[in-house]
């Protein structure tokens, strides 16, 4: 509950700050939407350029892209600023402040990473899911909705775990420009249906490194064809989260400050 309250405060602050630069705010909202739409467009061009993805029709891929847009919007909105904030704090020597704040350092870092410019992307993604679901005649039962929310939540948990590992590594290694690219690449792989991979590759992204939780599994839930194996990803995402927090605690113990 406290975490939600902190997120609310950050959203309010960021909106107030963004509105100070009105022109920049409006243009960035639109540009951010265009930018986040780029990945679904890219996917669509790939899909059209080849004979499609195994097991996916055109309409289903459009739904997949709407989920992709919605997902991108959510994580950008909630955690879009986390990477920049931690890099800036560690590089410029402001990291010690994190330990002085009244909450757990991770709570403080993550509840200050809202990127309000992704708001329009969340709305566009949500509208996209509604429209495509209606066109596909998907019957949205309570069970489907709950399952969709469960997998989406676990996807967020897994994404947060990766961000925690990123933050922990930043505390240790300080300059992490290249790791940012790597994280973006991981997200790139997660934005394709895992049916593109065979054998171990598929199991890897479904269970071992469950990036399929972000878009593939929620899309499959809406389409009513979720694999049984997907349920294991819930467990691995939670395990990832626990390991990430332990890794963070370990790194923080090794951290020494030379602040005044």
């Amino acid at each position, binding site marked *: 509950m406290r975490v939600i309250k902190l997120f609310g405060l950050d959203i309010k602050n960021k909106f107030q700050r963004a509105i100070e*630069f009105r*022109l*920049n705010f409006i*243009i*960035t909202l639109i*540009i*951010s939407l*265009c*930018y986040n739409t*780029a*990945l679904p467009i*890219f996917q669509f*061009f*790939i899909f059209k*350029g*080849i*004979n499609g*993805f*195994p097991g996916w029709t055109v309409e289903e891929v459009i739904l997949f892209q709407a989920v992709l847009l919605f997902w991108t919007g959510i994580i950008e909105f909630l955690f879009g600023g986390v990477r920049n904030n931690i890099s800036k704090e560690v590089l410029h020597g402001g990291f010690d402040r994190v330990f002085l704040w009244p909450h757990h350092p991770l709570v403080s870092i993550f509840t200050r990473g809202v990127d309000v*410019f992704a708001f329009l992307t969340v709305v566009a993604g949500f509208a996209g899911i509604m429209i495509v679901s209606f066109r596909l005649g998907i019957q949205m039962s309570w069970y489907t909705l709950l399952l969709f929310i469960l997998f989406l939540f676990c996807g967020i948990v897994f994404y947060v775990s990766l961000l925690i590992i990123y933050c922990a*590594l930043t505390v*240790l*290694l*300080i*300059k*992490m*420009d*290249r*790791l940012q*690219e*790597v994280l973006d*690449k991981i997200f790139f*792989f997660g934005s*394709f249906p895992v049916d*593109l*991979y*065979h054998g171990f*590759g598929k199991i890897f992204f479904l269970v071992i490194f469950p990036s399929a939780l972000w878009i593939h599994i929620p899309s499959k839930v809406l389409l009513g064809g979720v694999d049984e194996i997907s349920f294991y990803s819930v467990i691995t995402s939670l395990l990832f989260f626990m390991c990430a927090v332990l890794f963070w605690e370990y790194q923080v113990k090794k951290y020494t400050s030379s602040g005044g």
Partner: protein
Amino acid sequence: MSVFYHVFTHHLRQVLQYRGALLLSLFLHPLIMVFHTLMFKGIYEYNHKQTLLGYTLPQMIWYFGSIHFFYYLVWNNIDKSINEKVLYGGFEVQLLKPFSIMAWEFSQLASQKILSAIIEFVPVYLIYYFICFPDFMSVTGLCQYLILSVLALIQFFLMGFTMGILSFKLNNLTFLNSIKFIIVNIFAGAAFPIEFFPEILKKIILLLPFHYLYYTPVQFLLGKVNIGMWRVFSNCFMLQIIWILVFFFIARTVLNRTMKSYMSVGG
């Protein structure tokens, strides 16, 4: 030259301080290449084709793998760095230095890129070479790619510099940053090859100067251009030089106009 040498050695010391991050990138980028290989293998097998949109499987894998080379050799954050100086103060300190701001920023970037080429590009290129053997690649193609990448570096620097100087007018450059990402990922072809676009969009993109940043140089690396025909290379080279001159003219004009109206309230 002496200034450049000092900036270079200063930057070298800075990079060596963060060697852990460097080692991590040497490990993770090849891992990404492996996943690219797995993904595109699946796509090619499903389509039962030797080439997709003119790219063989190794060429496609290298196209996406080479994006890291773009970050090593061309990418810069000059706009962000200038914007931060403008927003949080510190720009007047830059003006007090005995050389022009453009020369200072460029020498810093050049030193950074020379180091990246030696300690990142070469090892990762060799690792890629063993992961996915590039049967299409030649030494000439590699040299042509590197020459065009140097020009791309200058072009991208001038673009970033102009964007940075615009902070004086716009204060906050968040939206220009997003535009930069769109330019690089879509118009320069860093997110995916331009061949994936519909014909009309492809023609428009090829008329714009941004494809020289990544798409055109990488075509030489992938052996998709007849590298024996130096006329093709020299055409690309000349056109890129013309665009660099255009961007240089824009950058100088924006800088001169901004400096004329610049006022600092120093302490």
